């Protein structure tokens, strides 16, 4: 008997992934959420066809960019009569990301999360493990670069460096967002369970720090999607 309505769906996707020989499995598509897959994934085009189509309201978006002065996204659009206009999208907090992430949690099974936690436990020291279980985050400093990272569940990893003087506090370089296989747009939810994402960040940082920075989206700390 499935514990929830997605349990059966997850089980089916697990079986299907064995047929398509995809080692990392097939992500769950959630109605109303846009799943963005790594383009080389064999099922990327299939998932793309499931994405919700934007409603045709007549207006066409010309461009969107981030304004550092206004600290928000600016949108330029063209109306039906050809007239162009612009507006700001206020972004003072990350509540929309939080709510989307809660909605996307249906994609994950508790069993998979517990398995991931068991694997993570083997990779970190016992006190670090306790820190992670209690706070959902832990710190580790790279021996190679000297950068300190705060690995967080369901939030981008924060990269920090000490200030120039002894008394100065840590300086945030940026927040690094990365999800193996794919992620749900406008949320912090990845295709994998949250601890798998944390583990991917940790292992890439330890094994190939430069590649970690290359693969991750580097988000400025003041932006809401940095999760600070």
């Amino acid at each position, binding site marked *: 008997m499935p514990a929830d309505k997605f349990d059966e769906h*997850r089980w089916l996707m*697990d079986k299907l*992934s064995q047929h398509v*020989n995809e*080692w*990392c*499995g*097939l*992500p*769950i598509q959630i109605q109303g959420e846009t799943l*963005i*897959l*790594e*383009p*080389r*994934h064999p099922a990327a085009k299939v998932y793309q066809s499931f994405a919700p189509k934007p409603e045709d309201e007549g207006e066409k978006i010309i461009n969107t960019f981030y304004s550092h002065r206004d600290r928000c996204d600016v949108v330029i659009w063209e109306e039906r009569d050809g007239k162009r206009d612009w507006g700001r999208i206020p972004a003072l907090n990350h509540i929309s990301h939080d709510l989307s992430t809660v909605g996307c949690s249906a994609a994950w099974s508790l*069993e*998979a999360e*517990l*398995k*991931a936690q068991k*694997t993570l436990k083997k990779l970190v020291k016992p006190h670090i493990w306790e820190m992670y279980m209690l706070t959902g985050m832990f710190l580790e400093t*790279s*021996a*190679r*670069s*000297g*950068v300190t990272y705060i690995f967080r569940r369901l939030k*981008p990893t924060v990269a920090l*460096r000490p200030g*120039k003087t002894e008394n100065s506090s840590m300086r*945030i*370089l*940026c927040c690094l*967002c*990365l*999800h*193996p*296989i*794919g*992620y749900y747009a406008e949320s*912090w939810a990845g295709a*994998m*369970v949250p601890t*798998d994402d944390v*583990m*991917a960040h940790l*292992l*890439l940082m330890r*094994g*190939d*720090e*430069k*590649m970690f*920075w*290359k*693969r*991750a*989206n*580097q988000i400025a700390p003041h932006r809401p999607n940095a999760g600070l």
Partner: protein
Amino acid sequence: MGSLSCLNVSGGDIEITFDTQSAAEAIRAKRMIKDMLRRGYALLIEQEDGTHTRALDFDEKVGKYIVADFDPTIEETDGKQIETQTETSEPTLKKTSRSRRKQIPMEKAKTVAVAPSAGG
């Protein structure tokens, strides 16, 4: 005994173990490793000293990972460069000892495979 774990979506992480005694398991593992590298997976190997390194390639004939040979405890970041970099750049590493390679036997390696990233 070597192990290969793969972060997996629906059923949770998968792990296979293998040693030199079981030829069938070793052949299966070799195929998996080669296929994962072909698909762009990052294979992260725990070394004897506890540090991790990424497999650059895999020699299927001898069953050995090929990794970059450097001392991970050596500070490779140029302090001045990191202070002047912008918040969207990556830590700058000196281009030293890049060409050296070493091999790690698969039956002695604990490896975790991470699928290609879609950013975030």
